[in-house]
């Protein structure tokens, strides 16, 4: 299984029935593939739909129905199309149960940086700052290191997305929960040792007893 599939499958386990969930583009969008068929949730795309469905078959696309990355999608029965003010009222107003986002860095405070690399990548924050500041829970799904460079660090060196402690960090190696005490190692990928994870992590990790393995299919 590829890293991104491990991460997506583990994050899918956090989604509970009837939640309103916003999946970021890229890796987070894969989470929908791992949701059990009997779990009904509403996916939001911040460009204006509650009840987002999968990509339509070729030739059946509607040019007025895309996700926030501009890719063609469908609307599930019971979907609602909304304008951007309503969409971000849902996000900031405490109505969005969960957002799943990628990350460039997360630090010991649980703060996320995921929108720019000064001098290299300045795409704009899009909806990320509102999502992280406003969603009830924020799950960061990302590979554990960037070609060996630490992404989980004592303090973010990249510009922050928000000063809000994220709910959970899920990587192909570990599940980490930011808390008031710091970053708690909750789960490890089967066969990966606590030492391996500590080596791949720039921040200090709190180990509360035995760290169980992730349960994956």
């Amino acid at each position: 299984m590829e890293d991104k599939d491990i991460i997506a499958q583990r994050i899918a386990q956090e989604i509970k029935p009837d939640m309103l969930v916003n999946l970021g583009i890229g890796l987070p969008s894969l989470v929908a593939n791992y949701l059990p068929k009997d779990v009904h949730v509403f996916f939001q795309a911040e460009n204006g739909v509650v009840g987002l469905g999968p990509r339509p078959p070729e030739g059946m696309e509607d040019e007025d129905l895309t996700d926030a990355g501009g890719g063609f999608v469908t609307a599930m029965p019971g979907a609602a199309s909304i304008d951007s003010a309503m969409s971000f009222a849902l996000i900031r107003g405490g109505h969005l149960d969960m957002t799943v986002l990628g990350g460039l860095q997360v630090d010991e405070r649980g703060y996320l940086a995921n929108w720019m690399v000064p001098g290299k990548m300045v795409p704009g924050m899009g909806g990320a700052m509102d999502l992280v500041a406003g969603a009830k829970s924020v799950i960061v799904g990302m590979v554990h290191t960037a070609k060996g460079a630490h992404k989980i660090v004592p303090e973010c060196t990249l510009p922050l997305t928000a000063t809000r402690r994220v709910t959970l960090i899920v990587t192909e190696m570990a599940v980490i929960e930011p808390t008031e005490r710091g970053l708690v190692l909750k789960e490890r990928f089967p066969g990966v040792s606590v030492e391996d994870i500590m080596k791949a992590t720039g921040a200090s990790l709190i180990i509360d007893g035995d760290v169980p393995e992730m349960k994956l299919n």
Partner: protein
Amino acid sequence: MKTALSAEAAAALIPDGAVCLIGGFMGVGSPHRLIDAMVKRGVKNLTVVANDTAMPGKGIGKLITAGAVSKLIASHIGLNPETQKKMISGEIQVELAPQGTLIERIRAGGAGLGGVLTATGIGTVVEKGKQIVEVDGKPYLLEKPIKGDFALLGCKQADYYGNLEYSLTAHNFNPIMALAGAIVIAEPHHIVPVGVISPDDVKTPGVLVTHLLERAI
């Protein structure tokens, strides 16, 4: 009743240097025929307020490529490398704003409000130079209203009073921008007789719309 203008006639109304609020999200819901006519006319020095600049060759991306824009307020330019290049070279002055903040600033401009207070951006680069207002012990950024000389909208259909109906994720910034432009130009796919659009389906009352473009075909 309004008379529908050709795209060329509508583009001729927009002078160089105008502040244009332009609807659309990655080109979905943008007034494409009007943008083409503006490029053809060779309009210059625009200030564009929009969620994004789509991509080269699409929607607002065409205005960027044509060198029609000198200032841009947007939330995301990551999918248009030309905008990024022109930002770095200084050809376009770019202000990046969180998407939910941008839409509320436009809404405030159109709704007669002196600004909005939002927690989005607190503790990030977005708060630079902005007033922080504490309400019940919680800090918020004061974000100022945005108005335009023009609001340029795309929609699914209109009637000859200028009532507008939108489609799926092509709502996005359009219904909000309809309030915030001194002159509002709407580009419908179809124009139907007055009375055909149910009052429940009118998202922008025609009293807000200054000019209609001819229908697409």
